[in-house]
């Protein structure tokens, strides 16, 4: 997932293919049942590692969340008021 592009589509990335003539071969070697290894259910059912968020990012996210909840409540209040 985080690995850089193994090979590129030969129709869209011809220079990369020229630079590495064995790229296509290697890609074929990395396929199992036509699926990339990290596409299998066995792989995708493994959780990804938790990212470390800075205090500033967490605070900004909470501020945005509180703001959105407040505005949503205002919209819902207005909606109910209009019904009456």
């Amino acid at each position, binding site marked *: 997932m985080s690995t850089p592009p193994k090979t590129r589509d030969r129709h869209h990335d011809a220079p990369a293919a020229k630079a590495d003539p064995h790229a296509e071969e290697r890609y074929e070697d990395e396929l199992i049942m*036509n699926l990339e*290894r990290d596409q299998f259910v066995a*792989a995708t059912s493994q959780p990804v590692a938790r990212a470390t968020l800075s205090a500033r990012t967490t605070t900004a996210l909470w501020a945005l969340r509180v703001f959105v909840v407040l505005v949503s409540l205002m919209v819902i209040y207005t909606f109910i008021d209009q019904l009456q």
Partner: protein
Amino acid sequence: MAATKASSSPALGLPPIRDGEPPLTHEDAARSVDRERVYSARKHSKRWKLLWLLVGPGILAMLGENDGPSMIAYASDGAQYGLGFFVPFIPLLFLMAYVCQEMCMRIGAVTHRGYGELVLQRLGKVWGWFGAGDLTLTNLVTLVAEFVSIRVGLAYFHLGAGVAVALGLALVVFTLSGGRYWRWERIVLGMALFNGLFLLAAILVKPDVGALARSLSFSPFPGGSFNTLLLLLASTIGATVTPWMIFFQQSASADKGMTPRDINHGRYDTAVGAVLAAIFGIGALVAGAALLTHNGTGIQGFAGAGFPEALKHVAGSAAGTVFALGLIEAGAVAILTISASTAYAAGECVGVSHSFNSSPRNAALFYAANIGVALIAAAVILIPGAPLLSIALNANVLATVLLPVSLVLMVMLANDKGLMGAWANKRSTNVIGIAVIAFVGLCGAAYGIDSFLQTVHLIPA
């Protein structure tokens, strides 16, 4: 084939697979069949076949968002304000939608995971569950509006709410019955192309081509109060970019089995969807604008079949019939895509199987959520005296208000080099993405606050 030699991703923490293959599931086997065709088309340079195989999630997200409430919103804009401003504004909004949806597609293709599970695992359970909560709320409200849209269309043919409910639920069950993503996608894609009925309706009302061309200058600007303008902006934005689209396209791209090699085709898919949706959306606007000279009379009230009936009187029965069929199609397709996005989110957040390629026995929650959310929405429109018109009109506004959080988390994921590696956002994408979030956030918040202050009489209405 030989076992992979690729090293495991640090973010995934996967054990390296060197000897033997990982245990296969039914979902793997089904996805493998689809990927074999993609692989074969690519190997034999069959470009058109490759494109045919890889299109789907982008077109479905965009045309799915041209849903009942959206088309009613566009037609209302046309009926009340004419073509000016909205003809160029709708493509601009779909350009914004393209920026967001391209990110979702890219994240899905690179990580093979849906939005819900990535937010939950990577950014924390609080944000994951908040996102799922937002989605469930807006999806429920929007699904009610979709059933309303089908009901409006059917009312033109003198059919009632019971038929609308039966039709919507039958479609959900029918499309789920195959146990294959490919089958589901192709059926819904085939139905979605009938969104073009709105373009046909626009042609049938014989619009003034000169007026259409003049409207490209963003004028005349809609008149009315500041609050009306904010409502117009918020509801029109909510008609083009919504939380369910983010969940849907990322999860569908992963479910389809897209890989980083398919990203260019995913971009074509998303761009084609955006262009078609903009054209058909303008079609609804132009059809609605035919009512402008009649002051939009006859468009209020679902008992009288609303827009289709009004169009029939102004532009003939063919225009009314086509518009009514369009509303049925728009509602039906959106029920399928929005139910699917809810089901993906439920499976991802609970951490159980969530794929159309899984059998109902293996993905019970996914199938139950898909049918269950549609069932709840259907039940609402059967309640006598339910405020269906208000629900339909407020669905887009609520989606706009809740959207910024989903967008911010999506941009964070798209910038996460641990997940995205070489496919992480470029600086230019971030600049555009942040501008989109700011615009959506400001419009939604301004409308919400202004309306609330008027309601509690802190400012004059």
